[in-house]
């Protein structure tokens, strides 16, 4: 039992103080010490004892009392003890300063400094004071001054152990482990019994120098119960990082814990261990203890980190975040311990605090610039912040540093999908290759994305392969497979069901029928379709649809519906297929099915609207479009566009008689298009619509410029099909009188978008030829249109008008050949035939023609025909005359020839008999000549007579014609109002046509966009979106209905084709000229 004896003043007695029974109140002891004027070393011993027992307060009390001015005075001679007391206090405050992290830190250091300075004042050569000062400076992190303090001591005494240790510590802190090791070794040599710290220091130096074995030896030489050594050894073992090492390491940690349960480091390691074994309760307990026992920042950081990690893994992000934060606060530089930053970033990311998360991740990257997970995470954050450039940079870095990390490639691919499909595909393919190499299962999403990208790049076979790979095995295999080579003996229930004949009358409903699958199930084959396979299955369906393998596509969609009848997009795709085949009844039913699932589904509503338009149900359609627009809060561009188009149609259709309403509708349409353009400045369809409205208002140049830009933009993408822009541009060229360009544009459009099958575009083309007075081209074009659309009688009417016009203009010509006139007669005959057939047919059907009008045409043509026949006769006569004339000329030359010959003969004769018969011959010759002259005169006279006759006839006829023409003009005047209106209508109608395209096109873009969505992410929502896109495709055609609806009207307007005079009065002076010409033509 240790005890001290305090000598009682002025006596031989001593007070025995048992050190382990020191009073709780230090004042008792102090009273004794003061009263007995005990030697100062006793003060120190007692204070130290208090300290050892953890009674810091008492320790401080005694020492402060022991360094008070009175004591200084009283014990003025006892220098060493006074210094020792001061140094003890200095050390105590240095320690407080060292462990304190708060503001008081500085105060403690200041106090410590004051004590040391006081000690120095007593004896500035006392080495222990210097050592203390060195320690203080070391604690303050002032390595250089600390070093010089220790050096002062060591200069005096090379073997001063504490100074050696201090200096070693300085060197260790400076990272000069070799020097540090030397100093520790010297200390050990000087004092082989020196405290364990020396050996620990040696071990640490060795460890730092990478001499792990020697470090181990150093630690092992220590007391096997030395907790620090055990912990160090444990860490060494753990670092071997293999099962045995880890076990040994953990055993050591455990032992350390058993010896001394308050060593924070071992607590942390144990907590770490239990974190990995999933014993979160232990983790919390251990770390809480660790936090309680240590004030050492880095260790606390570890503890907090362990705690945070534990909560993180349990999903308690709030608490995890708090502890990560606490951990981070304990750390001065991220370099020292970066993990909590990473954890904190993760939690913040999870909680949606992107900016903070990004900041923390960036701190991690400062320490570990190549960390793949961090790079990926930062990439993701940039994606979410919309900074795709930066995101790309980070993800590319990730794939560069980690070319074997398939996830990095997938992330990169997903980022690139919307911007660079090719690069995205490459990234996905790399990921697939990596997974294949590692024999890992390739995620369905990845394959689906690869397929979708191939699809987008028109690599259909590769796309199909990818989708099929994504689908794997299942009932769809058999459904898609058309191979019949299999064992035919064994009946295959799937094929049987698939090939079951359908009742023809039921076949119109086939796209709604899922019985096929029930039948397969009844046959004992289970029809399974996991939810995750739906994206690739649906995409495969759209691919097949795109490749026109429509039947197969419909089967896949129906399979989806059989298992998931709520899958709206499959309904809509089927509806689109039905609509593409003109099966509106079925299409509407399918859309209704979709609306039963969600009566607010904007895609379904929009499609329904289109179908209603097709059925000429304008009011309903508008309601439906409005509902769709409401359902999307006006955010859906397509819904807005549909309403815009509706207004445009309404402007040019309903309100012809009301200019005000027309203007309102146009204005409204423009407003809606503009609205879309404001939301999406690059929406081609809205731009197209705006262009059309501009054109409608007569701003041709602006419209042309706008539409040309749209056309250029649309040509860039294979997914954007905007024939409407081509047509609209052609219309503008036409309106501006640039027929050649208009013709070229119509033809290109036909070839490029319609496989030359669109009779409407042909009609526009014919119209342009008509205006350009290219009658043969016009006729051919119309015949082509008739061939394509045989039941469109207006085309026949137009053809008749063209023939009539052609004939009239030929007859009008001053110079014409017989062949031309003949052709005129033939065409007039055709025209008469066409008109009379229409007239006869109109008894049977209603074509929307005015019978009387046809009669007029027939009459006029017949009249023209008569006239032409006269012309023909005249022409033929002329031709005959010409021939006669030629004959005559021939005869004349012949006669000349004869005469010449005769003369020659005569000359010969003359030579023979000139002298004898000169006179006689002269007379004969004269007579002959006379005769010839007579003959000449005669022929020319008769010719002249003929000609006048012909002229007279001509004149008479033209008079007659003039009279008739007047009559006709009157009629025209009467009907001019009508025709003007009709003409306008026609114009507008054409514009309407364009608008169908507006819609169509828009849908397609939408489509692509959705596709993208689909590819990026396979959440069901995206799928829905994707599907939505697709259905838009389907909707496209719906808009076409105005044309159907207007057929009647068109018939009307086109019936006025024969009076193009009034048609384009507004468009250009050229047209007016031509109009005049036409009037005169009429005569």
């Amino acid at each position, binding site marked *: 039992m240790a005890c001290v004896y305090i000598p009682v003043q002025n006596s031989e007695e001593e007070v025995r103080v048992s050190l382990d029974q020191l009073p709780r109140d230090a004042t008792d002891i102090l009273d004794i010490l003061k009263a007995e004027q005990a030697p100062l070393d006793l003060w120190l011993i007692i204070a130290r004892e208090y300290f050892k027992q953890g009674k810091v307060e008492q320790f401080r009390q005694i020492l402060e009392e022991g360094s008070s001015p009175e004591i200084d005075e009283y014990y003025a001679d006892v220098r060493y003890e006074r210094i020792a007391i001061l140094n003890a206090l200095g050390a105590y405050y240095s320690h407080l300063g060292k462990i304190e992290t708060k503001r008081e830190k500085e105060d403690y250091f200041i106090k410590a400094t004051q004590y040391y300075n006081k000690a120095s004042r007593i004896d500035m050569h006392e080495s222990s004071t210097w050592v203390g000062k060195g320690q203080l400076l070391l604690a303050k992190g002032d390595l250089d001054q600390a070093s010089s303090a220790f050096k002062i001591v060591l200069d005096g005494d090379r073997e001063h152990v504490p100074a050696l240790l201090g200096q070693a510590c300085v060197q260790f802190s400076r990272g000069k482990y070799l020097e540090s090791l030397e100093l520790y070794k010297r200390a050990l040599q000087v004092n082989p019994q020196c405290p364990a710290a020396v050996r620990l220091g040696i071990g640490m130096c060795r460890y730092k120098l990478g001499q792990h074995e020697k470090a181990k030896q150093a630690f092992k030489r220590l007391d096997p119960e030395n907790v620090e050594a055990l912990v160090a050894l444990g860490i060494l073992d753990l670092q071997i990082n293999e099962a045995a090492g880890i076990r040994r390491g953990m055993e050591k940690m455990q032992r350390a814990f058993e010896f001394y349960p308050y060593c924070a480091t071992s607590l942390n390691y144990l907590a770490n261990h239990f974190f990995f074994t999933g014993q979160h309760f232990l983790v919390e307990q251990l770390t809480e203890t660790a936090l309680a026992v240590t004030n050492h920042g880095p260790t606390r950081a570890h503890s907090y980190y362990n705690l945070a990690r534990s909560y993180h893994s349990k999903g308690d992000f709030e608490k995890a975040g708090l502890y990560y934060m606490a951990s981070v606060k304990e750390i001065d530089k991220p370099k020292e311990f970066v993990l909590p930053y990473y954890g904190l970033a993760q939690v913040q990311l999870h909680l949606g605090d992107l900016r903070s998360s990004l900041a923390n991740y960036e701190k991690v990257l400062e320490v570990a610039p190549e960390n793949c997970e961090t790079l990926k995470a930062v990439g993701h954050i940039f994606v979410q912040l919309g900074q795709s450039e930066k995101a790309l940079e980070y993800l590319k870095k990730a794939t560069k540093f980690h070319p074997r990390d398939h996830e990095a490639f997938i992330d990169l691919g997903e980022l690139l999908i919307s911007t660079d499909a090719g690069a995205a595909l490459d990234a996905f393919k790399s990921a697939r290759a990596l997974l294949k190499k590692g024999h890992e299962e390739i995620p369905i999403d990845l394959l689906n994305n690869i397929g979708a990208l191939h699809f987008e790049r028109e690599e259909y076979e590769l796309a199909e392969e990818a989708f099929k790979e994504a689908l794997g095995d299942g009932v769809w295999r058999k459904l898609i497979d058309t191979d019949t080579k299999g064992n035919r003996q064994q009946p295959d229930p799937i094929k049987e069901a698939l*090939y079951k004949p359908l009742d023809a009358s039921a076949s119109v409903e086939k796209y709604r029928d899922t019985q096929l699958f029930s039948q397969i199930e009844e046959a004992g084959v289970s029809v399974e379709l996991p939810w995750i396979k739906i994206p690739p299955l649906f995409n495969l369906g759209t691919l097949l649809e795109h490749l026109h393998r429509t*039947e197969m596509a419909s089967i896949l969609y129906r399979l989806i519906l059989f298992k998931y009848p709520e899958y709206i997009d499959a309904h809509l795709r089927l509806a689109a297929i039905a609509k593409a085949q003109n099966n509106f009844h079925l299409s509407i039913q399918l859309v209704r099915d979709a609306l039963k699932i969600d009566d607010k589904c904007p895609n379904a509503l929009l499609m329904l609207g289109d179908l209603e338009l097709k059925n000429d149900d304008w009011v309903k359609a508008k309601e439906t479009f409005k509902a769709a627009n409401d359902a999307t809060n006006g955010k859906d561009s397509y819904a807005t566009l549909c309403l815009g188009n509706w207004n445009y149609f309404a402007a040019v259709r309903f309100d012809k008689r009301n200019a005000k309403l027309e203007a309102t509708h146009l204005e409204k349409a423009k407003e809606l298009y503009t609205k879309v353009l404001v939301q999406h400045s690059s929406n081609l369809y809205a731009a197209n619509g705006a262009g059309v409205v501009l054109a409608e208002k007569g701003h041709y140049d602006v419209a042309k410029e706008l539409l040309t830009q749209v056309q250029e933009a649309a040509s860039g993408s294979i997914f954007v099909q905007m024939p409407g822009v081509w047509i609209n541009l052609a219309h503008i060229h036409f309106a501006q009188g640039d027929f050649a360009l208009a013709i070229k544009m119509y033809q290109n459009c036909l070839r490029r978008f319609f496989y030359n099958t669109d009779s409407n575009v042909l009609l526009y083309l014919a119209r342009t030829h008509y205006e350009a007075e290219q009658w043969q081209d016009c006729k051919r074009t119309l015949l082509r249109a008739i061939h394509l659309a045989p039941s469109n009688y207006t085309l026949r009417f137009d053809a008749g008008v063209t023939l009539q016009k052609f004939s009239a203009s030929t007859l009008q010509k001053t110079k014409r050949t017989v062949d031309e006139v003949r052709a005129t007669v*033939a065409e007039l005959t055709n025209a008469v035939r066409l008109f009379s057939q229409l007239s006869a047919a109109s008894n049977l059907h209603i074509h929307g023609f005015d019978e009387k009008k046809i009669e007029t045409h027939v009459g006029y043509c017949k009249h023209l025909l008569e006239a032409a026949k006269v012309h023909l006769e005249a022409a033929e006569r002329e031709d005959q005359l010409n021939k006669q004339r030629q004959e005559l000329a021939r005869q004349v030359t012949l006669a000349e020839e004869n005469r010449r010959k005769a003369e020659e003969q005569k000359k010969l004769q003359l030579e023979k008999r000139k002298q004898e018969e000169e006179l006689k011959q002269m007379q004969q010759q004269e007579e002959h000549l006379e005769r010839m002259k007579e003959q000449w005169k005669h022929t020319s006279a008769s010719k002249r007579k003929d000609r006048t006759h012909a002229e007279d006839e001509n004149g008479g006829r033209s008079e007659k014609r003039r009279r008739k023409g007047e009559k006709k003009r009157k009629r025209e005047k009467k009907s001019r109002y009508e025709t003007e209106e009709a003409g306008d209508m026609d114009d507008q109608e054409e514009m309407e046509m364009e608008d169908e395209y507006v819609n169509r096109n828009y849908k397609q873009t939408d489509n692509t966009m959705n596709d993208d969505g689909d590819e990026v992410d396979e959440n069901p929502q995206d799928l829905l979106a994707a599907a939505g896109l697709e259905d838009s495709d389907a909707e496209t055609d719906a808009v076409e209905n105005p044309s159907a609806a207007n057929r009647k009207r068109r018939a009307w307007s086109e019936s006025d084709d024969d009076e193009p005079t009034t048609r384009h009065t507004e468009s250009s002076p050229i047209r007016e000229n031509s109009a005049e010409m036409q009037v005169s033509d009429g005569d």
Partner: protein
Amino acid sequence: MKLAWLRTQDGAHGDSVWTTTWVPGNEESPALLLTGSLDETVKLWNPEDLSLIRTNSGHCLGVVSVAAHPSGRIAASASIDSFVRVFDVQSNNTIATLEASPSEVWQLKFNPQGTVLAVAGGGSASVKLWNTSEWKLVGTLSIPRPEGVKHSEKSGTKKFVLSVAWSPDGRQLACGSMDGTISVFDVARSKFLHHLEGHCMPVRSLVYSPIDSRVLVSASDDGHVNMYDVEGKTLFVSMSGHSSWVLSVDVSPDGAAIATGSSDKTVRLWDPKMRAAVQSMTNHTDQVWGVMFRPPGGPGVRTVQLASVSDDKSISLYEYS
């Protein structure tokens, strides 16, 4: 089952070639090819080298259909002016000019016995039958108007008859219309039997299988080729693959293959057993309006040939094997 391209005559006509038919061979002449075009002519070709034998003019407005009598001696052509001209193949002498105003004329087909010429009557919603002995109108097969539908303007044009086909035994006749329905008639009793539904867009061509009177194949603007069991009134195959309208269809003489021509510029060969196209010929550069297998028989012909005509003004021949 495949097609091998043999030869092409470019610029066979001055404009789009819209129709073709084989004139069967007889004692005097081997089989010949007859084509009609928008250029208002009908031309006769030697299939050996696609050399032009004769050009028949005198048609006004485009020639939409040509048909040959089974004897190979007589042929008929129809044009947009709604006249049918019947002429002697060898001499080009006009035998008759047929007109059934106001009904216009579209596809023409002689019955297998050669006694009747059927003419698709367009807007008259009927098929006109002309006997070939006196060229008299002997019958009109009218499509009954669907009950309960108003005689509105729309239904008037809906049953616009475009195409016509005889069953191999000549007892039945089927016609295709603009609205996609196919109507089947019993010719002898002059009776409408039933409709076959499945298309909703114009059926421009249809044909019975030469080996099975029950099987009817139709081509439609909806891009589908449908095969019906006429007796059972069932649709048993519906094949898609063309990217645009299917304009013409024919069944091979062995009944195993189907050939189609389409607006997508291709000629395709289909295997009905596989329910898919097995081959696609891309030699034409515009819509393919007509495809027809050469009827079997005739001297020196071992293989089966297929002819196609197109808007690109050319004629092509293929060997089917």
